[in-house]
């Protein structure tokens, strides 16, 4: 339980820091860089390193590359939906999670499965 509380606090901290930087950064497209910052990765990989060692970090970082490709596709999809379909940000970002899941799990099955 202590581990998960620690994860929660460290993850929340890193995400908040990057979110604040993204809030104050201008222009908007530059601020968007911080929306895809490796905040959860810094927290998770840091904990994984001390808990499970280097091997676990290497395995997670390899998968993260595939997750990052899926994130790029997701971001482009959200951008296109917002510009072309003119729906709100919340439905656009949530519905596009399907794209992220399909690409991330598909790439994982292809290369690491």
């Amino acid at each position, binding site marked *: 339980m202590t581990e*998960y509380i620690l*994860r*929660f606090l*460290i*993850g*929340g*901290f890193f*995400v908040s820091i990057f*979110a604040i930087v*993204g*809030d*104050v*950064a*201008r*222009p*908007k*497209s*530059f*601020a*968007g*860089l*911080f*929306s*895809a*910052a*490796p*905040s959860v*990765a*810094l*927290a*998770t*990989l*840091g*904990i*994984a390193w*001390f808990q499970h060692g280097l091997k676990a970090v290497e*395995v*997670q*970082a*390899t998968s*993260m*590359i595939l*997750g*990052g*490709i*899926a*994130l790029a596709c997701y*971001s*482009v999809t*959200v*951008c296109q939906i*917002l*510009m072309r379909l*003119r729906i*709100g*940000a*919340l439905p656009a*970002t949530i519905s596009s999670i399907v794209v992220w899941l399909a690409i*991330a*799990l598909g790439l994982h099955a292809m290369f690491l499965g």
Partner: protein
Amino acid sequence: MPISFSLSAFSDSRWYEYVVRFVLGGLATVVTGILSALYGESIGGLFLALPAIFCASATLIERHEIRRKRKAGLDGTRRGQTAAALDAAGAALGSIAMISFAVALLILAQRGPLPAFFSASTVWIVVAIGAWYVRRVLRVARAA
């Protein structure tokens, strides 16, 4: 428009918006840990790039823009969507930097946690700003 930092953004934000992002960030980290424990480190690693926080960020950006326009007596719905779309375009470039972070971490992992995280974070910021700058130069050149 050059890169700048404006503290006026804090006046647009409500305190609970920071709480929401802290909680979402914490939950995303906990969920990644649970998935790693249940399905292995490899599946857990995928979720390090899950856009869980992005949903909240884009929605808040849209809401701030709409609120700002409504203060000026305008609808602001379309402007809000455009602002969120620009954030998504930035996130697409940021994801290239995120991939670079992971690659750098893999290459430098043997040097120990602190040097590896420091170097990978440096690679992340350099690639992120570089990608954004290249896109900007290309857009300006195309418009000219």
